């Protein structure tokens, strides 16, 4: 076998090797790209699923709150009003000593009716849709300050504009969660609310001077309420940043672009399932 033939064998073999190896390399790269694409799609599907899940949870929660609100307003307060009227009619037929006690009871019932109506308003979506976020928070602040449980201050900056019913409801629920935490867990004395309206950005800052907590709490099961705030903010296209140090209170900052499409799919308000 001459040198020319050996050369031919080596050349042909090398060429075939190169083609097969080239194909395998090409396949590996193609496969890797497909894996990355699939992973990306899977992540997107999971994110969409999580958002859908959160939306559903909020829908159910809002429906429940609306139902309770209606029950309080249409049923309990009506019954209490009837009791109050009955006591008034009884009061005219008894002696002065009993009359004073009946009047005292009537006042307590009247106070309960007022409190329940306030509670009904704060639970109901319709109220915030009618009067808006700022007004609703103002009323809440007044109510809490009146109770003496907490000293709440509200500061509004910039030209107030509507953020949309859905966004305002979600922001209000975040506010409720924060105030609930301040009262229930943090044992706070002061609570600051700042609503900052800018043309391209809206900021809601909620601060308390309570016990605070370790940042690790956000990853714990017990920190689900805090995580919920973050999720709720994400749902309306915003971002919630929660800062806290044990003994130094807590600061929740929610920012969102008022022009950004909320509810990634542009879906209906959580309160409306239909």
């Amino acid at each position, binding site marked *: *076998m001459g040198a020319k*033939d*050996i050369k031919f*064998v*080596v050349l*042909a*073999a090398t060429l*075939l*090797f190169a*083609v*097969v190896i080239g*194909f*395998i390399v090409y*396949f*590996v790269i*193609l*496969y*890797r790209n*497909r*894996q990355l694409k*699939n*992973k990306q*799609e899977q992540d997107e*599907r999971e994110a969409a699923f999580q958002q859908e899940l959160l939306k559903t949870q909020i829908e159910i929660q809002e429906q429940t709150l609306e139902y309770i609100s209606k029950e309080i307003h249409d049923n309990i307060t009506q019954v209490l009003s009837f009791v109050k009227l009955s006591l008034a009619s009884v009061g005219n037929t008894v002696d002065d000593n009993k009359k004073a006690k009946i009047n005292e009871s009537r006042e307590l019932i009247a106070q309960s009716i007022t409190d329940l109506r306030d509670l009904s308003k704060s639970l109901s979506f319709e109220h915030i849709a009618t009067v808006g976020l700022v007004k609703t928070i103002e009323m809440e602040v007044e109510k809490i300050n009146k109770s003496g449980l907490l000293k709440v201050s509200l500061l509004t900056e910039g030209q107030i504009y509507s953020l949309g019913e859905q966004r305002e409801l979600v922001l209000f629920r975040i506010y409720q969660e924060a105030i609930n935490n301040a009262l229930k867990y943090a044992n706070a004395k002061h609570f600051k609310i700042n609503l900052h309206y800018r043309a391209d950005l809206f900021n809601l800052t909620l601060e308390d001077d309570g016990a605070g907590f370790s940042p690790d709490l956000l990853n714990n099961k017990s920190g689900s309420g805090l995580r919920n705030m973050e999720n709720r903010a994400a749902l309306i296209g915003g971002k919630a940043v929660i800062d806290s140090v044990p003994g130094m209170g807590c600061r929740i900052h929610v920012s969102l672009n008022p022009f950004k499409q909320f509810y990634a799919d542009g879906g209906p308000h959580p309160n409306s399932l239909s």
Partner: protein
Amino acid sequence: MIAFIIGVVRYQKLATPFQILTYYLLATIILEIFARVLAIKFRNNALAYHLMSANGYVFYSLVYYFLFINKKIKRLVLLSIFPVVLFFFINLFFLQQPSRETFPTNFYLLTNTFFVILSLLLFKQMLQHSSQVTIVKQSIFWFNTAILFFSATMFLNMGLLNYYVTHKWGYDIVYYFWEGNFCLFNVLISISLFIDKRDPYSIIWVQKT
């Protein structure tokens, strides 16, 4: 032999197609011994190589049968065994009789064409149903690479061998090239047997969405 030992040691952990592959390796070893015996006794072991060629097609078809998802392809792979085996007998008795010391090149050309097609189809299936497992950790990839590589180079091997034999040239270089390919094929098969796992096999394919 090393591939067979790996297959035997890891037999319980292997998925069905790779268990079949282990049986194939056992059958090949037996036929290799048979070939040695024939060579010593009759100085003609062509019959053993004929049997080896049929053995290869039947076992590899079964392996591919279990690796494919598409039912139509599975059925075709399984049904192809019958006409191919029929052709094996025709070749054995009428075209390249072992008594004439002929190597079953006709049969190898046909079956290697099938193997190239099957391996390409399996690569296509892998792309369509890609798993999140790194490709180098997938036994199926190494097995299929081995088949594609060996089948594709087999054409060159046989073509060159025939060319050199016809021209009565020394064909040592072709022989070494062939042996080199065969070694590489066995290494790839050994890797596939070494990394195959029965448990994750069932979830290796992520359904196309």
